[in-house]
């Protein structure tokens, strides 16, 4: 199936740990994104990345870092996890000119920090 896939779907971890969320797309899209959805369902962009450029939302703590081994993958690594990092994280991808085509989203990773 063509899709954006994220793993794991659920992640429960203790404060201070380091964790990664993986994302893969087989749509041949140019750009990938990470979004954070808080408990009020508000979607906030964290990063956008294509093979040329990483754009970081300035409000994202530097404990968060995207890592892209190739065009089809964009993983999210989080250091020193905090309680406030608990949220649902969505990966998405788009063709060039995402403002025209929109995104295809993954199914999300629910991160719970205890």
């Amino acid at each position, binding site marked *: 199936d063509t899709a954006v896939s994220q793993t794991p779907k659920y992640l429960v971890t203790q404060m201070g740990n380091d964790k990664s969320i993986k994302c893969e797309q087989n749509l041949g899209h140019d750009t990938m994104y990470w979004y954070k959805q808080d408990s009020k369902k*508000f979607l906030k962009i964290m990063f956008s990345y294509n093979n040329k450029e990483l754009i970081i939302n300035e409000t994202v703590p530097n404990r968060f870092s995207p890592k892209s081994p190739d065009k089809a993958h964009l993983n999210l690594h989080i250091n020193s996890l905090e309680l406030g990092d608990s949220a649902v994280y969505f990966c998405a991808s788009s063709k060039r000119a995402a403002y025209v085509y929109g*995104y295809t989203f993954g199914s999300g990773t629910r991160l719970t920090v205890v």
Partner: protein
Amino acid sequence: AQSVTQPDIHITVSEGASLELRCNYSYGATPYLFWYVQSPGQGLQLLLKYFSGDTLVQGIKGFEAEFKRSQSSFNLRKPSVHWSDAAEYFCAVGAQRSSGGGADGLTFGKGTHLIIQP
């Protein structure tokens, strides 16, 4: 900068009744507009999008939306809702990267939570 307002945080509709979800946008140029639906525990799925041309856009699952430039609105409608339509609905506007930086992409509203009464 572009923005999207969804005035209704929650809406409750009886099954079989009609539905309209409101969306207002702010953008200096011709907007690209989208509606997404998020079912419980799922990712966001594209319902429909507007680029240009006919201002009434048909989408999946029986949804449609109408672009009204004079009102800066892009409201989502469905003539008869089903219990499976209970979900979170997001309106979004697409914007090209501004000269000041940032990403090409979508700006989302805060969502409207749709509850279906039996």
